[in-house]
């Protein structure tokens, strides 16, 4: 309703029109918003290319990534990655010259009910099992700083 310069309810047209349009609200989790590619989700590690230079560990702003070296010459490494500490800035991906790190754009629903699912171990199966068994043994021996 426009009366010269004054107008009561300047948004009348828009608001009335909205009645007949579909609301923009998306019913997550039933409808999921398409994620742009290139979205920085959770870290993905490819152990085959890694040489253990630890450049990624050095520059991580929140110390979310640690490299456990099982055998440097045989290039057997395991990465311990803290999902809850990571700020998803992508600096480790940027630093890695052998591009064995990348951030997947579809792994972004990372909520979970227990905290220890936030500590992930990347590497070949038997390396990871080895590290986990060592860790378990150490815990069994008594609390030790990790």
């Amino acid at each position, binding site marked *: 309703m426009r009366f010269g310069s004054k107008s*009561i*309810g300047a948004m009348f047209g828009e*608001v*009335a029109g*909205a009645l007949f349009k579909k*609301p923009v*609200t998306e*019913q997550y989790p039933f409808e999921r918003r398409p994620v742009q590619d290139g979205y920085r989700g959770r870290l993905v590690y490819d152990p085959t290319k890694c040489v253990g230079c630890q450049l990624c560990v050095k520059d991580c702003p929140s110390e979310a990534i640690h490299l456990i070296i099982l055998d440097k010459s045989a290039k057997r490494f395991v990465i311990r990655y803290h999902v809850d500490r990571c700020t998803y800035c992508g600096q480790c991906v940027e630093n890695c010259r052998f591009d064995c790190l990348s951030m997947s754009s579809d792994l972004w629903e990372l909520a979970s009910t227990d905290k220890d699912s936030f500590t992930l171990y990347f590497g070949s199966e038997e390396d990871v099992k080895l590290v986990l068994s060592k860790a378990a043994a150490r815990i069994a021996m008594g609390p030790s700083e990790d």
Partner: protein
Amino acid sequence: MNEFVLALAALMIFPGGAFVLASGLAFEWIDRKLVARLQNRLGPRWFQPLADLVKLLAKEEIVPDGVHAGLFKGLPVVALAGALTAGLYVPIAGVAPAFSFPGDLVVTIYCLSVLTLCTGLAGTNTLDRFSFVGAIRTLTQLFSYEAPFLLALLSPAILAGSWQIAEIQEYAQQHTLLILLTLPVSFAIAIIGLMGKLELPPFDAPEAETEIVAGALTEYSGRGYALFRLGRDVELVIGLTLISAFFLGGLANPIEFLLKTLGLLVVVALLQALFARLRIDQTVGMWWRVGAALGLLQILLLVILKGLGLL
């Protein structure tokens, strides 16, 4: 004996308590859904008001210290009772009002104000500053919209020459066009007055979320808060029924009731979504300068026309 049972049934079940409460919740949902859709949002699920009510009733009611406990618990009950009694004289669901006697229009209007008075009292009853200021605002707003709202509702009564809602409605059914032609201003003031009474935006200064949390009801939780909200929903239904009975040519049957009240509700929702919240001094200024003056003018016009015998 059975007319006692009938009266009790009318009071408790059909046009009275249970039905009004249910329709109150339904109307609240429709209102919230409409405002949401106007803002391009989805809006709540159909049973959200019921879910809110059940949750609030289940919650523990905390009585803050420094408060008169009896008053604190009693006020919500009185508020809801006031709203429900107003529902008895109004043609809810298009059926003839449960009770009707000459002069029940004035009783209804004052019963409707009982809730606002209780909110004001509840606000001053506690030591919390937000509710103290909220109460001041509620009462300031009450005194500002009461006069124009009263004038707006009385003009059809003067036209029909009776104070009984049933009779006014009958008159309105026969002379719908006449009422709409001579009383358009009263119709507008009545709607805006109802929004002022229910503190719907743009008149929600008394419970401005960003300024004073929840205004007079800041200290309330659980049962007390549920009853206050329920009272407000019931008043929404009664207000809409009253206005559509007078100005939209009466409510002969349930379908007509539904059509007319929901039509009015769409208008109210639209008004809610269109404006920024008026400061308390702006609302009071607007009511006294514009509302009261127009109301009086309308009544004057009526009296002159009636005097000249044109009506």
